[in-house]
């Protein structure tokens, strides 16, 4: 049996609301199928499954908010002893359901999962108040050392996502949780006298959400406040933990823009390339030359990554931002990058991002040029080690070979983690990027 758990879609996510199931018990699922939609505090995200098998049981119903790591569904993996046909699994699941074939209440669910101690209806809230024991018999696998560390630091193991074999929680998982939420109460919204109850009510007080198969998606909630808090947690951690250094350079964009203009003349509107695309490609290519900037700082260790997944900061109209990843950006052509970017921006704004797109970024680009900003001094998104910022390309006096000219000039900045790299490498990166932008046809 495989457990399909509430994923962590970013170092700042602690819980998520299940919005919708795309599968039902008995359905066959394949690796990378999207089987559920989860609302983080930032957006509605489509969640992929990483097992092959048959959905055995669904444990969390739409509308429920559960901690990261909670088992959402059980998947019977292929080749497991006693594999049943899809039909059989469905029949079995139906047999387990109360008359009518639907789960009406939390009590029924709790009662079904633990028949030996059925919870009286009056105590349902108490049952719901124990997220440490998701309604499954599966026990949490924790290494002895991790268990000891968690006890010392008062960390609730049930909210952790294990990265060890078979999802076992290891010391590193406890330590990274300790980094995000040091001992004490979870991060709360800053006290604001006029603010009403925070949208994330403390768990122990949360009443069981109304659950029925016909229930609407959860009531529209205050995205902005929740997203603000999520951003606050990540950015506060960044500023607290990451010793940033900043480098800045001015880049003559005339060659790139000329090339882009001639390229776009050949294209119909929908195939046109936005100026930010060659910038993304130049970043990706420069990272292949300076790979130290592409990766993470985790467990007091620099962990450069081979694949270059560029997180692109996308501002949302309702406020806040989200940084989905353009996967393997260095391997994509300019056209493929444009396509990927358009697709990401569209889905980010309509809420259709995949979980892997939200968690895989190895570096981030933020471009504020649309608004006329000249220079961006970025805040690194942990655990990444670098962020590249672009301002607006604007005409400026430019001296070259003893001549003064007017050129379109872009100010590019690099914010980098001084634990992972030093200014010299950062400078090499900006220099490489500039070089690529002077030979745009090679991008």
């Amino acid at each position, binding site marked *: 049996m495989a457990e399909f758990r509430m994923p962590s879609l970013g170092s700042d996510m602690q819980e998520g609301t299940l919005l919708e199931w795309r599968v039902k018990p008995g359905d066959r699922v394949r690796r990378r199928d999207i089987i559920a939609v989860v609302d983080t505090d930032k957006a509605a995200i489509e969640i992929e499954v990483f097992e092959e098998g048959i959905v055995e049981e669904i444990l969390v119903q739409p509308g429920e908010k559960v901690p990261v790591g909670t088992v959402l569904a059980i998947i019977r993996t292929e080749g497991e002893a006693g594999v049943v046909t899809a039909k059989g699994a469905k029949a079995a699941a139906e047999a387990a359901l109360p008359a009518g074939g639907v789960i009406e209440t939390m009590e029924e669910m709790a009662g079904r999962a633990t028949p030996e101690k059925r919870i009286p209806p009056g105590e349902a809230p108490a049952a719901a108040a124990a997220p440490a024991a998701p309604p499954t018999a599966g026990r949490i696998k924790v*290494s*002895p*050392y*991790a*268990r*000891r560390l968690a006890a010392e630091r008062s960390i609730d193991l049930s909210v952790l996502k294990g*990265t*060890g*074999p078979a999802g076992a929680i*290891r*010391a*590193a998982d406890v330590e990274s949780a300790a980094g995000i939420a040091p001992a004490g109460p979870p991060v709360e919204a800053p006290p604001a006298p006029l603010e009403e109850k925070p949208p994330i009510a403390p768990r122990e007080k949360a009443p069981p959400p109304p659950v029925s198969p016909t229930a609407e998606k959860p009531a529209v909630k205050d995205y902005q406040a929740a997203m603000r808090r999520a951003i606050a947690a990540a950015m506060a951690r960044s500023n607290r933990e990451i010793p940033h250094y900043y480098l800045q350079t001015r880049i003559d964009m005339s060659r790139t823009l000329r090339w882009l203009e001639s390229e776009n003349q050949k294209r119909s509107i929908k195939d046109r390339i936005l100026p930010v695309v060659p910038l993304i490609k130049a970043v990706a290519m420069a990272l292949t030359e300076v790979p130290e900037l592409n990766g993470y700082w985790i467990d007091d*260790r*620099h*962990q450069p990554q081979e694949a270059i997944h560029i997180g692109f900061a996308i501002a949302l109209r309702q406020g806040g931002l989200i940084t989905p990843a353009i996967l393997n950006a260095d391997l994509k052509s300019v056209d493929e990058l444009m396509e990927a970017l358009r697709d990401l921006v569209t889905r980010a704004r309509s809420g259709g991002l995949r979980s892997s797109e939200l968690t895989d970024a190895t570096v981030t680009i933020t471009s504020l040029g649309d608004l006329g900003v000249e220079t961006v001094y970025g805040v690194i998104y942990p655990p990444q080690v670098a962020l590249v910022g672009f301002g607006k390309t604007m005409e400026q006096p430019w001296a070259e070979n003893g001549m003064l000219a007017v050129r379109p000039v872009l100010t590019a900045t690099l914010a980098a983690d001084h634990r992972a790299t030093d200014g010299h490498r950062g400078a090499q990166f900006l220099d490489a990027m500039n070089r690529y932008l002077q030979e745009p046809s090679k991008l």
Partner: protein
Amino acid sequence: MTNGVETLRKVTYREAVREAIREAMQKDTRVFLMGEDVGHYGGCFAVSKGLLEEFGPERIRDTPLSESGFVGAGIGAALGGMRPIVEIMTVNFSLLAADQIINNAAVYLHMSGGLFNVPLVIRSATGGGRQVGAQHSRSLEGWFAHIPGIKVLSPATVEDARGMLWTALEDPDPVLIFENSGLYNMEGMLPAGAGAVDIDRARVRREGKDITLISYSASLFKSLDAAEILSREGIEAEVIDLRSLRPLDEKTFLDSVAKTHRALVVDEGWRTGSLAAEISARIMEGAFYELDAPVERLCSAEVPMPYAKHLEEAALPQVDKIVDLARKMVKADG
């Protein structure tokens, strides 16, 4: 090592053992060497070459092909006040002397109510990897480490090859020294004044913080090579040389596990009922709450050692297997 480069000299493991024997013969007239082909032939592995000429046939004694006989004679000589060094050509032939070692040497002190110590040293080559077939490639030192009443040593470095013998001879009880035959040609640096070393402590041969590789003898160098490769990937492995297989210096490896939280035992013996199993159990008993991953073992494949070179290499623990396993243990989602 602290005396500076000029006082170091390069010697082979074989030369280091020979020097140790020579020094013992010179220092103590009760010491003598006996075994198959140790005299005129100079030793099956050429360890005792030249010693017959130097010390004469009374003290460098060739024996008949009878392990049971000459090990028994060694026990008798030790009981009679001598300090014999008995060479059993390889551990494979020690089985012929198992009764003498286990039923006599190991228990005399006990059976005599504490009256008779047996100050006997047995040297023997061990290990596989030289294409000499299944009956000549065993690593049975772990078996002897099972027996109370004897000490079992496993020198890996030239310094230990040079220094363990004298300390073993000074021990009032039987000591078995297993020399991996693949190490005899290995060169190492020895301080000019190298001499006796302790025989009861393990050593940390490389410091690290992410995983502990526990090994001995030839596997030590495979583990060190693996640690070097792992280090390039950002994994810092601590490498422990057990040196003494009985008694086990468990404090050294338990302390290391308390630091790294992961342990991989590399042992050329077979896995089932092995020394590696013993070490794994000790870690479970003594450092359970320090473990962040299950203890793993890398042992020889449980087959009679194949003769074919590629099959023999596949059967023995190798550097790439150590690296793979260590990486899996340290990295997420292993």
